[in-house]
């Protein structure tokens, strides 16, 4: 789905993951998508260098997200949003539909 556009399917899926999750860190992305950590780090570094992603340190973790100051952010988000229904439903549910609302401490799942 993304190979023709981004040069690799992985790059598109990493962006889709960040679009769905808002922010994430390399090992979480690697674990969720089943990619090697090095591969994810290289993809993230490339997008950050190009201004597509931002990163910030939170404690000891470096979080990445879509850069709100990237001039084509709205168009990129629209593309990623349009791509979501094309993902296999089970995979979409598992990887790209995170629960983002808070859950009170101690509340049973």
């Amino acid at each position, binding site marked *: 789905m993304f190979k023709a556009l981004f040069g690799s399917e992985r790059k598109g899926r990493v962006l889709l993951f960040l679009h769905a999750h808002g922010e994430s860190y390399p090992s979480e992305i690697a674990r969720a998508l089943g990619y090697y950590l090095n591969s994810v780090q290289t993809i993230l570094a490339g997008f950050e*260098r*190009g*201004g597509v992603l931002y990163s910030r340190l939170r404690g000891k973790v470096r979080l990445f997200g879509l850069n709100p*100051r990237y*001039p*084509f*952010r709205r168009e990129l988000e629209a593309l990623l949003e349009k791509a979501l229904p094309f993902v296999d439903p089970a995979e979409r549910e598992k990887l790209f539909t995170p629960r983002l609302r808070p859950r009170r401490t101690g509340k049973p799942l």
Partner: protein
Amino acid sequence: MSRRPESGFSGLGLADMALAVCDHLLKNGIQVVLSGGACVSIYTANKYLSYDLDLVLLSSEKQKETKAVVTALGFIEEGRYFRHPDSPFFLDFLPPPLSVGEEPVKKIAEIRKGGRVLKLLSPTDCVKDRLAAYYHWNDRQALEQAILVFRDQHVELAEVRRWSIAEGMARKFSIFKGLLPQKKR
């Protein structure tokens, strides 16, 4: 022991350093525009001092050449930055497009000194650039820098307002406007 040749960068302030680097790049066919906090330093006579020279490349074809040109000047690559042993300032080359928020920069300012040329954001675009950091990251330092530039330079406030609304930031623009000092006419 061999001595390193004099670079000419020792003791240079931020504006002169930026001028020397940008002019040298331009003479090698590489166009860059100074952006970010360094423009605030220049427009406020260092009331805010940045050590980071954010240089936006106008052509993505020139990235490899840029590295060779600044390395020949004595800069050393450290991660994504370039440092010079004779200067506290470091260079960060950013890819095109030159933009503020979602809009391309239409008019680039120039500072000329001693036959050298420095291209940089205009005061109005510098304020937008700082406000973008305030709008999107809630960065209060960037808000204060925008106010400093407004105080010291001619800034087209109506244009900043138009851009802010286009960015969906009318409410935060009102906060910025409310903090601006009255200018004497």
